[in-house]
């Protein structure tokens, strides 16, 4: 067990979205554009990192019987902080992500890391686990968001690069496109994991 390994496992080997299939609700919901994916990824990473830190520090204090309520209170607090700060300082992004910010509370990736990792490991490991998992989550969201933005709107990060004759596939902007896009990403990930012999 090393800090670097705890960090890097979240990006490929145990990527929360592409390998563990955790927290798919926001993955499918907000990835209409790459920017939305990035915003959601960063917000979730912040919450994950903060909750991992606090839960790791409190792991000897929190009694086993009430650990889940304690985790949820900690997570919900950070989510509300993100929600309010984003509304105040990044209003455009907040308007786009809307309902999905409060829903980070029930993102099973965050509770999953709290329960499976932070409550059992020391602070430094929990920090690197939180950052690694957060980066992996963000990468997956940006990939899916970018794919849907290119196909569904002919643009990437709001920059239109396709010729005018390109008619965007409206289905990729709609929820159905999220499932189709995620299917392709998972197929690609399975191919990659076979090549890298991860399983």
């Amino acid at each position, binding site marked *: 067990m090393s800090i670097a390994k705890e960090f890097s496992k979240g990006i490929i080997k145990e990527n929360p979205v592409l390998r563990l299939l955790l927290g798919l609700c926001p993955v499918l919901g907000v990835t*209409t554009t790459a920017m939305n994916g990035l915003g959601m990824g960063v917000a979730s990473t912040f919450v994950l990192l903060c909750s991992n830190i606090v839960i790791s520090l*409190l792991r000897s*204090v*929190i*009694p086993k*019987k*009430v650990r889940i*309520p*304690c985790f949820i*209170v*900690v997570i*919900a*607090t950070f989510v*509300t*902080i993100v929600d*309010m*700060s984003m*509304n*105040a*300082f990044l*209003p455009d992004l907040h*308007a786009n992500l*809307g*309902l999905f910010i409060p829903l980070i509370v029930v993102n099973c990736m965050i509770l999953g890391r709290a329960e499976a990792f932070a409550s059992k490991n020391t602070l430094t490991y929990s920090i690197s686990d939180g950052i690694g998992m957060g980066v992996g989550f963000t990468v997956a969201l940006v990939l899916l968001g970018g794919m849907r933005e290119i196909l*569904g*709107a002919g643009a990437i990060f709001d920059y239109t690069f396709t010729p005018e004759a390109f008619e*965007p596939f*409206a289905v990729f*902007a*709609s*929820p159905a496109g999220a499932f189709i896009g995620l299917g392709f990403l998972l197929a690609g990930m399975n191919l990659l994991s076979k090549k890298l012999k991860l399983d």
Partner: protein
Amino acid sequence: MGDIIKLSVVLALICMVAAGSLAFIEGVTTPVIQQREAEVLAERLGQYVPDADNFEPEVVEGKEFFKALKGGEVIAYIMPDSRGPGYGGDVRVNVAVDTDGNVIAADVAGHTETPGLGDVIEDPGWLAQFEGKGINDPIAIGTDIDNISGATVSCRAVATAVSNAVEQIAAAFLGIAMAEWDLDAVEDGTYTGTGTGYGGDIVVEVTVSGNKITDITVVEHSESPGFWENAETAIPEAIIDAQDYDVDAISGATMSSNGIMNAVFDAIAR
């Protein structure tokens, strides 16, 4: 027993710390949010009524409105955040209305409609169709306002929000009530009214005698032959029978039927 006390104390302590930090952050962010929202609203208000030099908020029956002032005189009223039920939640529309009760600007302030489908309601060209609509003008999607295919529910939500705002402003500031169907108040005579059918306006003459509708004649129409005939006599007969404008439409001529009903309503209600 001691166990339960320990559990409760730990959980309560965590909650207290959480609540305390949230209260602190809320205190920091709320003024920023309120200031930004006020700025956005002020900027938008200026776009709706470019002639106005000042805007004044006024609360009527718990609802916030804005009065647009020019040289101290009110030239328009604005209802922010008028709501209509859309596909993904309420569509919020800001509506500006002049002192005659006609819409001068409708603008979608916020919505949670499907990106790529429902968000076409933000199109200024489409929203411009609401301009000039008054309190007694029908605002129906498909006839009075173009429907956008793939976004019917979202379009209807905007229309609902706009008519709602026009009604509320008219009731709160202009003292204009909605047109009402009240045959008892109608004097004997012949009245002309207009409704929108499938091919354009339908104009009818309604004869009232002794507070009863005795005759309905269609003066003008441009409906499709082969469909129009179904509604041409049946709807006026049904209206005279019922002494009410709201009768069942004839299948195969729904739009023509509704056009006649609206024309009769228009004739009697004013």
